[in-house]
C-alpha cells in the first residue's frame, strides 16, 4: 500500500501532440480516485504512465515516496485491470490468477492458498478450472479483478473495467468494486468515461479535458460547485441546462425571463474585460411546477411559462422537456460535450429545457405550463474562458448573492 504522487506529469508524442499536460495529483494511501473525461482527454494515458506502460515525457511520478519514472511495470508493484480483461486464453482461471505469483517465484502451496482466498472473495471458487472462453462477461471481469488482488500490490489501476458489461451487471459490479476496495484498503486509480460511475465510486474525482485537469474533488462538490462550464456539463444526468444570457442594466436577459443579479455577481461584471454575454446553467432538479410550491420558496426564484414537449414519468418524479425560445448558448466546451455525447444537439445547449418536477405535477404533453426555478442554484459562466462566475472561494452561491 502506498500513496501516488504525480508532479507536473506530461506526455507528448514525437509528432508534437500533447496527450497529458502538467498533471498534479496527490493520491493518498488507500484512497479511491477516479479519472473521468470524454474520450481523448488523456485519462487512459495518465493511467498507463502510472502503470509504466507508457513513458513519462516530463515531470515526476512517485509511488510510496520513491521516484519510479524509469522503472519497468514489473518493478512498480502495482496491478492493473484492463477494459478487455486481458485474461490469458490458454490458461485456466486458476492459472490466470496464479500467473503473477508464479512470476514472483512463490512456492506452490503459498500460490494455491492465495489463489483460493482471492477466489473466495470474488466467488470464483467453482470456476477455477475453467478456461476464460467458457466464462460470462461478469465472470471474466471478476477473474481479472482476482488476478489483480491476488498478490496484494501497492496500488490497483483500473482502465474502464466495467464498460464491456451490460447495464444491469455494470451496476452490480460497481458495488462489488466499491466493497472490494473498502475491504482491501488499497490505493486505487480508476479510469472511466461514465460520469455515473465516477460519481458513485470514488472518494475523489478528477475531471480531465484535453490532457489537462479541470477540477479535483469529492463527487458532491463537483456536482454542486463546478469550477467551469465543462465540469458543470459533464457531471450530472440528465445534464445541466445551458441558456444564453445577455447582461443588461444590472440584470440578465434570458429565455426564461429577466434574472436579477446580486451585488457579488454585479461586481464581477463591472470589470473592464467582463463579458457582456454569459451562459446561464441550471440543473433539472432546480425547477418545479409553480402550482406545487409555497410562497416562501416562490420568493427565492422566478417563474416562466413554456410549452411542454415531452413528459417522461419515472414514478418518483417526472422529467419534463420544454421548448424555449431564444438564442442558443454556444461555447467550445459545450460543443465538445455534445460531440462526446454523440449528438450535435446536446440536451443542454439546444432550445430544449430538461426539468425534473414532482410526480404530483399534473403536467401534460402539448400544454403550456407555468414553471418555477431556483435563483440560488443558478450558475453563470463566461463563454470565453468557461469560468464559473458564481463561484466564490470554491462555493457556488447563485445569482442573488450579496
Amino acid at each position, binding site marked *: 500500500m502506498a500513496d501516488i504522487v504525480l508532479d507536473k506529469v506530461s506526455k507528448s508524442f514525437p509528432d508534437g501532440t500533447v496527450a497529458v499536460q502538467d498533471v498534479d495529483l496527490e493520491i493518498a494511501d488507500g484512497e479511491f480516485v477516479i479519472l473521468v473525461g470524454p474520450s481523448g482527454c488523456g485519462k487512459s494515458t495518465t493511467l498507463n504512465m502510472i*502503470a509504466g506502460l507508457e513513458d513519462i515525457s516530463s515531470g515526476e511520478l512517485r509511488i510510496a515516496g520513491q521516484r519510479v519514472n524509469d522503472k*519497468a511495470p*514489473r518493478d512498480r508493484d502495482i496491478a*492493473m485491470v484492463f*477494459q*478487455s480483461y*486481458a485474461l*490469458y486464453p490458454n490458461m485456466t482461471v486458476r492459472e490466470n490468477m496464479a500467473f503473477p505469483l508464479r*512470476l514472483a517465484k512463490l512456492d506452490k502451496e503459498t500460490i494455491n492458498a492465495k489463489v483460493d482466498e482471492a477466489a473466495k472473495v470474488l466467488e470464483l471458487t467453482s470456476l477455477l478450472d475453467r478456461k476464460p472462453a467458457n466464462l460470462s462477461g461478469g465472470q471474466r471481469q471478476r477473474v481479472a479483478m482476482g488476478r489483480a488482488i491476488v498478490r496484494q500490490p501497492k496500488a490497483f489501476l483500473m482502465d474502464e473495467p466495467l464498460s464491456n458489461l451490460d447495464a444491469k451487471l455494470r451496476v452490480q459490479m460497481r458495488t462489488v468494486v466499491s466493497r472490494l476496495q473498502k475491504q482491501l484498503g488499497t490505493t486505487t486509480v480508476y479510469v472511466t468515461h461514465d460520469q455515473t460511475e465516477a460519481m458513485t465510486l470514488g472518494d475523489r474525482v478528477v475531471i480531465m479535458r484535453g490532457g489537462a485537469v479541470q477540477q479535483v474533488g469529492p463527487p458532491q462538490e463537483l456536482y454542486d460547485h463546478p469550477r467551469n462550464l465543462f465540469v458543470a456539463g459533464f457531471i450530472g444526468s440528465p445534464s445541466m441546462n445551458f441558456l444564453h444570457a445577455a447582461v443588461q442594466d444590472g440584470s440578465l436577459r434570458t429565455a426564461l425571463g429577466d434574472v436579477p443579479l446580486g451585488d457579488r455577481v454585479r461586481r464581477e461584471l463591472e470589470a473592464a474585460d467582463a463579458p457582456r454575454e454569459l451562459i446561464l446553467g441550471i440543473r433539472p432538479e432546480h425547477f418545479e411546477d409553480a402550482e406545487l410550491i409555497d410562497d416562501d420558496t416562490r420568493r427565492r426564484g422566478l417563474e416562466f411559462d413554456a410549452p411542454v414537449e415531452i413528459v417522461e414519468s419515472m414514478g418518483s418524479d417526472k422529467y419534463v422537456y420544454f421548448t424555449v425560445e431564444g438564442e442558443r448558448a454556444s461555447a467550445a466546451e459545450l460543443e465538445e460535450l455534445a460531440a462526446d455525447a454523440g449528438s450535435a444537439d446536446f440536451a443542454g445547449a439546444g432550445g430544449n429545457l430538461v426539468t425534473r418536477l414532482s410526480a404530483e405535477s399534473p403536467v401534460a404533453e402539448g400544454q403550456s405550463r407555468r414553471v418555477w426555478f431556483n435563483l440560488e442554484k443558478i450558475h453563470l459562466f463566461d463563454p470565453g474562458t468557461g469560468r464559473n462566475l458564481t463561484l466564490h472561494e470554491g462555493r457556488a452561491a447563485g445569482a442573488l448573492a450579496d
Partner: protein
Amino acid sequence: MAVETTTRAKLRWGLLDVLVVVFALIPVLWIASLSFKTPATLTDGKFFPREWTLDNYKTIFETDQFVRALINSIGIALIATLVAVVLGAMAAYAISRLDFPGKGLLVGVSLLIAMFPQVSLVSPLFEIERQLGLFDTWPGLILPYITFALPLAIYTLSAFFKQIPWDLEKAAKMDGATQAQAFRRVIAPLAAPGLFTTAILVFIFCWNDFLFAISLTSTERSRTVPAALSFFTGASQFEDPTGAICAAAVVITVPIILFVLFFQRRIVSGLTSGAVKG
C-alpha cells in the same frame, strides 16, 4: 417443392464439384496408375493397370539415387523451414507490434522478394554460390529457400500476431513478466497454431521446389527428389525409367497430400486469418 429444388441444386453442385475434382486429379491419378504398371503394359493407354505390380517401388528404394535424394529433400526442407519460421516469427512480431523506422521498407522489400521471378535469379545465384563454394551443398539450397520462404512466413505470421490482443502483453508485464517472459509464456502459446500453419506452408514450398534444386546442384550430394527425378534411369541404364519415375513422384506427393488433407482447416484459417474478421 422446396425439397425438390434443394435436391436438384444439390445434384447440380455435386456434378460441378465432381467435374472440378476430376479435372484437377486426373494427372495425379494417371501417374499413380502408371506407377503400378509393368514395363510391358506401360504404354497400353489404359487408365486402370491390367497387371498390378510393386516392382517400380521396389526399384526406387533399391537405388541409392532415390534414397539419397529423399534424405536430401527431407533434411534441406526441414532446416529451411525451421530457420524461416524462427526468423519470420521474430520479424512478424516486430512488424505487428512495433512502429520502428524502416518498417514500411522492410514489408515492401519482403513483398518484392515474394513477387520476384525466381528464374531471373538463378544465374546470379549460380555464379555467387560457385564463388563461395556453396554450389552443390545443403546450405547452397537452404539459403535461397529461406530467402524466398521468409516473405510468406512473415505475412502469415504477422496476420496471426495482429490477432492477439496487445492488452495480453501489457497484462503480462503488469503481472511482473519481462518482455521475454511475456513473449514465451503468453504470446508464443497463443501464436502456436500460426507457427504451425506457417511451418507447413514453408515446408511444402521447399519440398516442391524444382528450379533451384536443378540449377544449384550437380551431384547426389545435395540433389533433392524433384531434381533427382529428372536424372532417373531406373535399375539399369537400358531400362525404361517411366514406371520408376512415376513411383518416385507418388512417393513424394502422397505425404504432402496427406499433410494438407489432415491440416486443411488449419491451413485455410491460417491463410485467411486477419483478412476476414471472425
